[in-house]
């Protein structure tokens, strides 16, 4: 059997178009992995770089805010860094990490006006999409497969070899299976090999790499099936190539674009802006409401501070932080609706992933690489949890009127590398 495969390999490699195609697959896949790893390294660098800068920034606040020990000042002026380190497989599918922040500073103030902050990025660079491994797989791999498979049988027919070949083979199915297997296998190898190398270098889980490799095979199998199906109509190589390229255009460009129209049209998410506007109104109306009313509303959610010294005078941080938090609570429904809108968009994308293979590979790759909308929302969830810890840290100082000393700055919750960082 290896003998036969060896023969087929020699035959394939002597074809004019085969070697350049295979070399190109390997080159593009390796280049994409390299580019992805460079981008991930850059993101790691940024995360590492911000830590000392953050310390310096906190120290600057500490130097003056610790003097009078007012916990309110500390809570108001201190920013706390959060970050979402790229997963080991992020290099394969960079996803939304270029358009959503992966480092974000928050304060113990109302969160809803902080959590949707954007990142400085060049939109024109993001517009065409990133050149990463998932792109090579989803868009380019089918094209290469079409190059090698569109004339599998029709090419033999056009060369006048088909009958002779079929008569010569004692196992005709085996002959085609070997030829298809060889071509699919070589392209799959060209795609998977750089992925595995990149994955091992990045410390990705073997199971994830296996899953991605299985996905490669499945995706290629789909396109192989389509190639065989279309070539069963017995058309010439030229017609096969044209109809396959047309299918490629439809499946990877046109249908996903139509799907985007449908999904985004079905689930509008204007709540994002609405809740931001509403939250500002809620927070700032706090200045004009009677303080007792504000505090009462706050105590309903945080009864543990009910017994503390009542607010007197024109201003107290207790009151300030209370209406900040009430501002967040007042838009909780809209936050949930906004979130549901985003999740519905993602859910329908997932459903489409089962129908459209191009969406399927993108969805699965980004899911495994944790670079999709779900990952972005998960990061926001971790920020919310962290923000809660921040409030829980500052509240005892503020509500019990405990002076906030120099050392207390060091006691503030830190973004946990393992639990929250990824």
């Amino acid at each position, binding site marked *: 059997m290896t003998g036969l495969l060896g023969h087929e390999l020699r035959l394939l490699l002597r074809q004019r178009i085969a070697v350049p195609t295979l070399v190109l697959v390997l080159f593009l896949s390796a280049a994409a992995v390299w580019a992805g790893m460079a981008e991930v390294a850059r993101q790691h660098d940024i995360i590492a770089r*911000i830590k000392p800068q953050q310390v310096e920034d906190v120290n600057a606040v500490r130097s003056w805010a610790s003097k009078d020990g007012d916990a309110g000042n500390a809570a108001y002026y201190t920013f706390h860094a959060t970050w979402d380190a790229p997963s080991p497989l992020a290099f394969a599918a960079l996803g939304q990490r270029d358009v959503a922040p992966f480092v974000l500073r928050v304060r113990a103030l109302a969160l809803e006006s902080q959590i949707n*902050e954007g990142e400085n990025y060049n939109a024109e660079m993001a517009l065409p999409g990133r050149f990463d491994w998932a792109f090579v797989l989803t868009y380019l791999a089918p094209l290469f497969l079409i190059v090698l498979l569109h004339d599998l049988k029709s090419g033999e027919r056009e060369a006048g070899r088909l009958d002779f070949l079929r008569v010569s083979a004692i196992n005709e199915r085996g002959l085609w299976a070997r030829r298809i297997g060889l071509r699919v296998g070589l392209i799959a190898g060209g795609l998977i090999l750089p992925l595995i190398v990149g994955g091992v270098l990045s410390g990705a889980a073997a199971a994830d790499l296996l899953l991605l490799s299985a996905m490669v095979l499945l995706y290629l199998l789909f396109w192989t099936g389509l190639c065989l199906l279309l070539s069963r109509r017995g058309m010439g190589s030229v017609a096969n190539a044209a109809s396959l*390229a047309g299918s490629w255009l439809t499946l990877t460009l046109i249908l996903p674009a139509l799907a985007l129209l449908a999904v*985004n049209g079905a689930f509008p998410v204007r709540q994002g802006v609405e809740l931001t506007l509403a939250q500002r109104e809620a927070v700032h109306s706090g200045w004009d409401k009677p303080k007792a009313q504000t505090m009462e509303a706050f105590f309903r959610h945080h009864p543990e501070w009910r017994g503390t010294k009542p607010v007197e005078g024109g201003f107290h941080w207790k009151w300030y932080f209370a209406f900040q938090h009430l501002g967040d609570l007042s838009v909780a429904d809209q936050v949930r609706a906004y979130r549901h809108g985003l999740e519905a968009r993602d859910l329908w994308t997932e459903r489409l992933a089962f129908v459209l293979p191009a969406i399927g590979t993108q969805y699965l790759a980004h899911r495994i690489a944790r670079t999709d909308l779900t990952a972005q929302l998960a990061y926001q969830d971790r920020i919310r949890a962290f923000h809660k810890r921040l409030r829980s840290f500052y509240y005892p100082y503020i509500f019990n009127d405990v002076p906030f000393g120099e050392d207390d700055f060091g006691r503030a919750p830190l973004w946990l590398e393992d639990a929250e960082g990824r």
Partner: protein
Amino acid sequence: MTTVRLVADNEWRLMRRSRVAQLALLILIALSVIATLTSIAHRDANDDLRARFQAQADQEFDGQPARHPHRMVHYGHFVFRPLPALAAFDPGVDAFTGSTIFLEGHRQNSANFGDVRQSSLLARFGQLTPAFVLQVLAPLVLVFIGFGVVAREREAGTIRLLSAHGVTAQSLIFGKALALGRVAGLMLAPAVAALLWLTFLEGAPIVAALGLGLFYAVYLAAWVLIIVIASSLARQARTALMVLLGLWATTVILIPRVAPDVALAFAPVPTRLETDIAIQRDLRRIGDSHNPDDPHFAAFKARVLKQYGVDRVEDLPVNYRGLLALEGEKLTSRLFDDYAERQFAAERKQGAIVAAFGLVSPAIALRNFSMALSGSDLDGHRRFLKQAEAYRFDIVQRLNRLQAEAVTFGDDSNRNKDPDAGRRVRIDPKHWHDVPDFAYRGATISEKLESALTGAALLLVWLVMAGFGVRIAIRRLEAAL
């Protein structure tokens, strides 16, 4: 000339008989129509929504009760970027840039709620817009229809027959190009209709619409010539198809994705977080308002006291706290402008690198040109960011001036201790009405033309290069006849 017409008519007849060609063209035109309709509806809805939000924000600002001016500085304002009419033709980076910014004192917030961040990764497959259909899909459909125009005649041997009837290589190639050009014209038709619609019903600038129509035609013409060249040079139709598919995939799909990677590597931009920290650091160096012994603010105080000829801030005719706020805002704003300019410069450098790739990819050249003329390029967004920042500075300083002039220093200092003072610092809400609303000024047509220049030049270079290619193809075909 008549032979050219004859060849073209004959090819045209063949294309009309080809079910594949008809189907491909029909699908493209259908997509183009769908894209046009949805894109116009999408733009109108988005623009309406933003206008409504803007009106709501303006109203809410004006409707604020009596307050301390500094409360209003932090209450802030929302501004929304309106969508130009031609964004319905080419929305450019609109989905990638946030459409609204919250403006407040001594902070610069990001533009938020861009469509892409709010979408699943479907958004990265590309949006179905008239521009996308013509930039990406149309060339490929032209390839499908046209790869065999000359190669097929060569394969079938009919080319010698034509030659025997006196058809020259030149008239053959020109005729085939003319026939394929008619197909391209049909593809362009829905887009032209869209541009007419946008010009006459939605008030798009006519020069920009004209430029768009013209240069999309140049782009498709370049593709028509490239296809005819490849079809003439290839000995087999299949070779022509493979070469053209490869060319399309490389120039339309691959290079536009690789170019930004190169650009980002050459001109990196720091994250917002780092910029934030850096601005704070610079601010502390220039003048730390929290430090009572800060030399900058000490000098400022001395200058103010000297200017008014008094010894104590309490004796100033104006509220010193307001003056401090004015001075502080001036410092931060200068830094914001500084850092923004640095970022814009880096972005422009990135943009220039990608634009240079237009030499190897006409799709990039056209994309840049199209976004620029549609007013949906990054320049447009930068213009919004700059105007928003200028507006922010303006309203914050107005409010700070109110604090300096309409609130006394005594009241301001005792507002939290003395309830009466606390009441007095809340100034008449008519002042909020006096703050002007944000009016976004879009790019003028000359500004648009200026930023579209590179793309237009590159497209013309492509057309000229294709023209040279045609001459080579004619010479080669003459030798083959």
